[in-house]
């Protein structure tokens, strides 16, 4: 069968078969009314919620760094009880979180500007892959915050406790090591659980989108 014949056959097939199901304006409006949000809309919404939560964390962290504890609770100050290196480490962690947050936000804006609605297939694929990848990284980012803040918080609390009670003399290294190990185990568990959950829900989809984009790219590369 020649390709021109194919075109004719195709037109005959599609015109008549689709003609059977032509919907009225009321039916279309009713369909639109029932429609929920698409996957990309939901992902986009989740990313925005994630950013809001992270922003709240960042503001809290910065507040904690900038507002002296003594200003809120007169007479209460822990600064002298926590070693200087730990205070600097805590500040470094907070600054790192702020820097990562800004990087993510800039990246997100860039992805959103790849194209608006109705752009070509290639850019649509790039956009969805970008949003999904960012979404996955946000998970890791959130976990990094938990890990870093838990570690510095635990260590700071540990030093304060030693200073106030002097009950851990002789057990300093084993207790500190055990505490940090527990935090690492908990964070590791959370990390693998989140990664597993993400792959379970979006893994195949992301793989399929990348394969589709690769098919387009392969064509471009071979044509050059």
């Amino acid at each position, binding site marked *: 069968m020649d390709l021109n014949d194919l075109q004719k*056959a195709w037109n005959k*097939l*599609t015109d008549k*078969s689709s003609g059977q199901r*032509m919907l009225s*304006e009321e039916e279309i409006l009713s369909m639109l009314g029932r429609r929920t949000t698409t996957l990309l809309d939901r992902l986009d919404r989740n990313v925005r919620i994630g950013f809001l939560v992270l922003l709240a964390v960042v503001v809290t962290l910065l507040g904690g760094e900038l507002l002296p504890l003594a200003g809120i609770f007169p007479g209460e100050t822990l600064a002298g009880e926590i070693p200087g290196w730990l205070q600097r480490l805590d500040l470094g962690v907070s600054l790192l979180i702020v820097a990562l947050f800004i990087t993510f936000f800039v990246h997100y804006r860039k992805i959103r500007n790849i194209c608006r*609605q109705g752009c070509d*297939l290639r850019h649509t694929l790039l956009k969805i892959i970008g949003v999904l990848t960012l979404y996955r990284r946000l998970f890791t980012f959130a976990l990094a915050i938990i890990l870093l803040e838990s570690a510095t918080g635990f260590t700071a609390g540990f030093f304060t406790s030693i200073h106030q009670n002097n009950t851990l003399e002789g057990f300093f290294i084993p207790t500190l090591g055990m505490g940090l190990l527990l935090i690492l185990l908990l964070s590791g568990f959370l990390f693998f659980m989140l990664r597993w959950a993400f792959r379970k829900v979006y893994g195949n989809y992301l793989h*399929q989108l990348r394969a589709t984009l690769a098919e387009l790219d392969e064509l471009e590369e071979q044509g050059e």
Partner: protein
Amino acid sequence: MEIVRANQGIIHKVCNIYCDDEEDRNDLFQEILAQLWKSYPSFRKESKFTTWMYRVALNTAITSFKKVRRFSGFTRLSGESLLVADDPPSAETEENLMLLKQAVARLSGIEKSIILLFLENKSYEEIAEITGITQNYVRVKMNRIKKKLRILMTSEE
């Protein structure tokens, strides 16, 4: 709304080529409709309305979350998607249509979109505009798809 209603055949064609199952077709139809509705304010009339409509419909079909299921393995033919209301075709035409449908069903998502646009008499320029690749690459791809279709149709016979 009126312009979408008048051109809804495009959505049906895209749904038919990407979905075998009636339920999937309805879901995809609804999804495409929602995307068209949402995207219409951004339609700048730089291209023809039907080109823009194909673009949104194909983007939605290819990037749909359910596509993993749609693309997995060979899409079986359903009798309904081949129904012709009146003027029943000759046995030979019907056989050719069946072969064409079966061959198209075995193409990848990108190949399906390109062959659909070709079968819909879209120019290489329009196909390039919809897919985001250059016209030369569309030609290269079209030649490959034609060869693949010939082989598939011959092997089905």
